């Protein structure tokens, strides 16, 4: 007779044997398992809310893969691009390059927890999490590969993370800090508790809703399928947080939450904020980035904080102020430095400007004159007249351009340490750097490398240094100066 699931699952997920040849500390060294180092007694009650067996996992994943691959087969490769808005195609290219291999790095994080997590139930959940992340790498690589026949820049789905392109350097800096160079406890808080329960919901679910309206059903299926995995393994964070708080580590837990919230916000305003509001076709936009951030990210995050009686991050007011502006400033940076990107970037047209002003009442007054100026520059001197040729200053923590929140509202600050002066886009970035300066101080931003001669200062050489083959791969204006835009097909690489 075969045992029923409920007869064996509780026993199987709690196989925590006592080692005889090594002691517990050697088996779970603090450097990899994390601190505070606690005996297993403290971790004995580690429980995930939703339990899964390996058999159930395999059956579910098989169904999910079949759903995605079914759409891919139904569309047939020659029709993958049919009916897609050209801006949306660039959004997919941006997303794939920035996300696909991060997922693979995520598999390494899950595997670290699968070995060094302190309870067998945690290790089991992380084992499944690692399989999830490998799947999340394979699907975009497969779809990116399909796209290659129509747009050569889709090879950045795989290539991006192997380059020193500046957006990718910023992403690697964040994810190295979040999990690749983090122990099991820090990974669980930073990756599972903050990033996956908060931000990745926005990247995958909100964007899936937009993909549906943009008629990109393969992308929609892919994103929604990935998010169901994320939601399962994200629950690793909660019992780890509970154990930390029950064992006197409230201050450490609060720091990790604050730090990772700010760091994730920085990357998301750059990646998701700009993509949602400048590459998504108008009729596919369901909410503004700010509305998504408030409803899907901030509210959920507040519930998580309340559950554990944690404080709101000290920089919350600045974050709220930035919601109205920061990604719009960043879009101007992407547009004027577009030759350093692997995707094309859009200048908003009249209808989009009207929509932006509806969602952000200060938008036209704040950013309208800057876009008008770029339009005039194009008319007067062509595309080259709309590019920035000087270097942007980069933040020594987030590695992104030191933007104003809006023109005239500058939050940058510096720090003198060890004979070197560091620049930060904001107080929270400087604060994070100061908390762990030994971790961050030796890193050089792209600008630092140019200044000391480790990277070329000449733009054309810099393209090559960043892995961009100019002019084929370098980003361009989405409409190529055509007016009205989007009427003509967009040439592909």
């Amino acid at each position: 007779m075969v045992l029923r699931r409920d007869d064996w699952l509780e026993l199987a997920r709690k196989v925590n044997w006592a080692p005889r040849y090594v002691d517990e500390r050697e088996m779970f060294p603090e450097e990899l398992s994390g601190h505070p180092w606690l005996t297993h007694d403290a971790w004995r009650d580690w429980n995930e809310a939703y339990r899964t067996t390996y058999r159930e996992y395999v059956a579910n994943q098989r169904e999910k893969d079949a759903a995605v691959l079914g759409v891919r087969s139904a569309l047939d490769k020659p029709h993958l691009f049919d009916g897609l808005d050209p801006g949306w195609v660039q959004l997919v290219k941006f997303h794939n390059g920035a996300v696909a291999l991060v997922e693979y790095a995520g598999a390494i994080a899950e595997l670290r927890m699968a070995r060094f997590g302190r309870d067998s139930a945690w290790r089991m959940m992380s084992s499944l999490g690692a399989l999830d992340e490998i799947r999340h790498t394979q699907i975009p690589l497969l779809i990116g590969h399909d796209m290659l026949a129509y747009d050569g820049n889709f090879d950045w789905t795989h290539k991006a993370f192997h380059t020193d392109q500046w957006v990718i350097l910023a992403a690697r800096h964040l994810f190295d800090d979040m999990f690749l160079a983090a122990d099991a406890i820090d990974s669980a808080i930073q990756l599972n508790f903050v990033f996956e329960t908060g931000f990745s919901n926005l990247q995958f679910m909100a964007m899936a809703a937009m993909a549906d309206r943009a008629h990109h059903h393969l992308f929609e299926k892919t994103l929604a399928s990935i998010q169901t995995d994320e939601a399962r393994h994200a629950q690793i964070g909660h019992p780890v947080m509970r154990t930390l708080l029950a064992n006197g580590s409230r201050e450490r837990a609060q720091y990790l939450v604050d730090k990772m919230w700010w760091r994730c916000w920085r990357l998301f305003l750059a990646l998701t904020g700009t993509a949602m509001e400048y590459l998504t076709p108008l009729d596919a936009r369901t909410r503004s980035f700010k509305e998504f951030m408030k409803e899907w990210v901030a509210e959920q995050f507040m519930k998580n904080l309340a559950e554990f009686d944690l404080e709101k991050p000290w920089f919350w007011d600045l974050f709220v102020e930035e919601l109205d502006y920061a990604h719009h400033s960043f879009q101007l940076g992407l547009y004027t430095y577009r030759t350093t990107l692997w995707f094309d970037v859009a200048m908003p047209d009249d209808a989009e400007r009207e929509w932006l002003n509806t969602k952000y009442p200060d938008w036209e007054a704040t950013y309208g004159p800057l876009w008008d100026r770029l339009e005039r520059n194009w008319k007067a001197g062509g595309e080259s007249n709309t590019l920035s040729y000087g270097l942007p200053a980069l933040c020594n923590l987030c590695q992104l351009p030191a933007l104003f929140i809006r023109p005239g509202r500058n939050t940058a600050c510096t720090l003198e340490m060890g004979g070197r002066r560091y620049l930060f886009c904001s107080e929270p970035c400087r604060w994070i750097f100061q908390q762990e300066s030994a971790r961050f101080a030796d890193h050089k931003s792209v600008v630092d490398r140019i200044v000391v001669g480790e990277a070329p200062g000449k733009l054309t050489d810099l393209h090559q240094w960043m892995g961009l083959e100019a002019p084929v791969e370098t980003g361009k204006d989405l409409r190529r100066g055509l007016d009205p835009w989007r009427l003509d097909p967009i040439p592909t690489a």
Partner: protein
Amino acid sequence: MRIYLFGYASDDFLARVIVTPTERTVAQLADQLVAWGLEPERGGSLTMRNEMGDLLDPDSTIAATGLGNGDTFTVERR
């Protein structure tokens, strides 16, 4: 001597790297920054402050202001 600074023009949207000889004046540095911005020909009077918010004399040399590698400054245009 040439140094690199991070300059913020009040009507721009990000900070820009400026490499400059220190014997140039504050006024020349302000002009150099706004020349990289989106509306260099707009004109108007320029005032420049260091990170502490101190107003810098436009006729002083950069060396005399104490600005060094990696310092920030802000230029306001009226």
